[in-house]
């Protein structure tokens, strides 16, 4: 049968949802403990919310699902949420004024051409509005670490870059404002060639640029190998570099593992400070960073802010399904639907087992797949056959209390 499902969209089946909820629950627990509170923004927003700050690259915006809705006579386009952070910043500006720690579970829409990859992607995100560097940055990094640890994701690699540093570097090249924007656009779109083409008329600076962009490693090594030219660099470049070093030093003190990778700022359009990317088994499973200018670009007073998100779709693939409640203690109750006494007995037994906290599925048609620990067949008012699928044991009993006793229900 030809699929009726929209291209690029995905169904989540019970096993997927089991993992999804596990991720979500773990995420919620973690964030709540760190003092974050949950928010949710609408799926539909005005396109202008995302163009207004001028922070998203044209190529990113061209992948947004934008259209005219029934109110579109004024030419105002709406979009299916193409980004997680900007709507949260809007929600914050419209409702609050003091520092706030938010978390959310949301879907992001981006048109991916082939339709083979997901066009709707889920993420668990965290935003700390009003959180200043470097403490807030470190808080987020540790929170991300704790979360992935709680999820049981192994081999997590944290790659760190600094958007403020990268932007200040591009500024040193002395390009026209439009060429500078184009260069940054290419860098943010992940075009590596752009870094290679970057040349200033200062030899020392070019050397610094090459060593910085190619460096991969820890702070101790970084301090040895990457040296800022003695003169001729902007204070902006210097302050961003020292901010980066401050954060790394704190991480070293806290024994948090990371790798410096300046060139990896793909997709970090509104970021102004530290950028983090999380990988596991070669796959990107999360990212985020500091975006101190976003709120002021949206018309508020300037405010420090940072955040990150974990990408649910790749994480789902990494989780193995844990033994769930059904196979641990669930009960499948079978009975003959033609015998009214049996039906009655089934419903009443199910009721008492459920109130004792068990999952009970009724199966009068004999068609359910038995992935439950217990299968109880009711053949008469006083005839029960119990099978423990885990041990293979079998009992035949005559009374409800006996059934309850074998199932170990208090």
């Amino acid at each position, binding site marked *: 049968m030809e699929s009726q499902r929209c291209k690029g969209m995905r169904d989540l089946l019970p096993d997927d949802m089991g993992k999804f909820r596990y991720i979500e629950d773990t995420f919620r627990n973690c964030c709540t403990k760190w003092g974050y509170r949950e928010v949710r923004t609408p799926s539909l927003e005005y396109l202008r919310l995302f163009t207004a700050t001028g922070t998203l690259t*044209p190529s990113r915006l061209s992948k947004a699902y934008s259209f005219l809705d029934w109110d579109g*006579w*004024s*030419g105002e386009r709406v979009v299916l949420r193409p980004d997680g952070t900007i709507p949260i910043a809007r929600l914050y500006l419209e409702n609050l004024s003091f520092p706030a720690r938010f978390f959310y579970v949301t879907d992001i829409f981006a048109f991916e051409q082939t339709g083979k990859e997901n066009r709707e992607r889920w993420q668990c995100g965290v935003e700390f509005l009003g959180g200043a560097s470097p403490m807030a940055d470190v808080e987020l990094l540790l929170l991300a670490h704790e979360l992935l640890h709680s999820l049981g994701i192994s081999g997590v690699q944290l790659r760190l870059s600094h958007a403020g540093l990268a932007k200040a570097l591009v500024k040193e090249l002395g390009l026209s404002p439009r060429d500078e924007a184009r260069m940054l656009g290419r860098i943010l779109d992940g075009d590596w060639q752009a870094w290679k083409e970057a040349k200033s008329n200062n030899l020392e600076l070019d050397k610094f640029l090459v060593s910085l962009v190619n460096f991969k490693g820890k702070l101790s090594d970084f301090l040895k190998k990457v040296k800022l030219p003695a003169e001729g660099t902007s204070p902006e470049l210097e302050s961003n570099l020292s901010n980066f070093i401050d954060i790394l030093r704190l991480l070293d003190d806290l024994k948090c593992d990371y790798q410096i990778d300046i060139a990896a700022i793909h997709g970090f359009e509104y970021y102004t400070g530290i950028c983090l990317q999380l990988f596991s088994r070669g796959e990107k499973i999360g990212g985020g960073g500091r975006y101190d200018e976003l709120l002021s670009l949206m018309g508020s007073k300037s405010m420090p802010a940072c955040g990150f998100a974990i990408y649910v779709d790749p994480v789902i693939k990494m989780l193995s399904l844990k033994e769930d409640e059904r196979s641990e203690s669930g009960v499948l109750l079978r009975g003959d639907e033609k015998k009214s006494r049996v039906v009655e007995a089934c419903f009443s037994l199910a009721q008492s087992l459920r109130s004792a906290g068990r999952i009970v599925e009724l199966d009068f048609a004999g068609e359910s797949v038995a992935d439950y620990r217990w299968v109880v067949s009711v053949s008469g008012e006083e005839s029960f056959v119990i099978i423990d699928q885990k041990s293979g044991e079998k009992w035949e009993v005559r009374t409800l209390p006996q059934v309850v006793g074998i199932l170990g229900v208090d």
Partner: protein
Amino acid sequence: MANQSNYIKLALPKGRLLPDTANLLDGVGLGFEGYSEQTRQYRLKSAKPPYLSAKIFWEKDIPIQVSIGNYDLGICGLDWIEELLVRYKASAVVKLSTLNYGEGYIYAAISYESEIKNLDGLLGRQGNWRIVSEYPDLAEAFALNIRMRRFRIFPVWGDAGGYPPENAEIAVLWARNEEELERKGLLPLMKLLPARATVIASRESLDNKDLASVLNRFAPMLDNREFSLSFEEVSSKEGFVGSLPRPELKKVKLALPDGHQQPPTAKFLERVGLNLSHYSGEVLDYHPSVDLDWLGVKVIRPQDMPLQVANGNFDLAITGKDWLLDHVYRFPSSPVVELLDLGFGKVKIVAAVSQEMPASTMEDVRQLLQKGKLPTLRVASEYVNIGDKYLCDHHISPYKLIPTWGASEAFLPEDADLLIDNMQTGKTMAEHNLKIIDVLCESTACLIGNKESINSPDKKEEIDFIIQMMRGGLS
């Protein structure tokens, strides 16, 4: 069947590119009789080779027709190909090569009257820019490319160059060159792409058919250059002073139709005593003057009027009910209302199929789909929203709506199964061997207005005056 699969279908352009395309085809020995500017035919047969046929389309239909696989190959301007691809990136159309003709560029331009003289000037300002274009998707790509912070796009059927400065700040439009834009009072900001003639192929045909016999003949003419959207900034010119006198802003703005609706509208306005200069006769002035000093009149396409009235560019307009309906179905919250039915210009909006189709009602059509005798109903219509609603209301599924720019009858039977179009006498339908299976509604000319304008204390008196005046002319 082998013959069938070797049969190659070409989509060829009307209009701007027709003479050069006809020359090109003659030159490579693929000439089609009747492919000329005077032709009234749509379908063309080639004398040699016999496995080749062609159909003439409006340029903007060609990329769509080729991408849905109705035609194997097509020739049209790069502008219309990019207009399709910029929004529908996964369209199954392949650009093979540009040809060495097709002049002009797609420009983003601003009025010379504006204080803004270049792109940086534009971006340095806060504004909710109105961009008007026949190419709404290229216009959006332009706005996103330059990172415009806030903009609204108004698609129009007619000449976008007539809108700035009073009805839009920016127009995205085709022009031969910058001098032509200057003559229109427009200053180019950006060159989006060259409107070169381009050969395109359906991806499916490229994969499954042998097109070499035709493509080989084209080979010497192909320059194998690939153009695409380039967004080239136009350097600003200093010291140019706008040469076109712009009409002063009037209190009440009325839009009048060009095209078929123009003669009866002119006659009606004469009868009610609204004296306009140069709205009738040989030379149509797009800004006719009128003997009421508070009334500004502009001539635009009737299709564009409801949207323009909704957005307050005009307070009043004379258009067809068909276009009002098409607009309201799309935008139910639009502030456009019908003020008067003017009675003239009566047409019927009908659904028609080929005489050969075994259906005489929409129910029959539905049955054909249900029984699998038709895989999908392909519907050609100028009225996309009326068509959409009609098909949904009749529980037709699945269907594909092919937007056309007039002459929908030419799509049947090979490129569409059903058409939804207007009909005056039924003569065209008969000529094309079509039968009408339903009448959706009747449409006449009407006066439409913007709700806010009508209730504005500033304009109410004048608008009432116009309505009363027109009411006096109703027979």
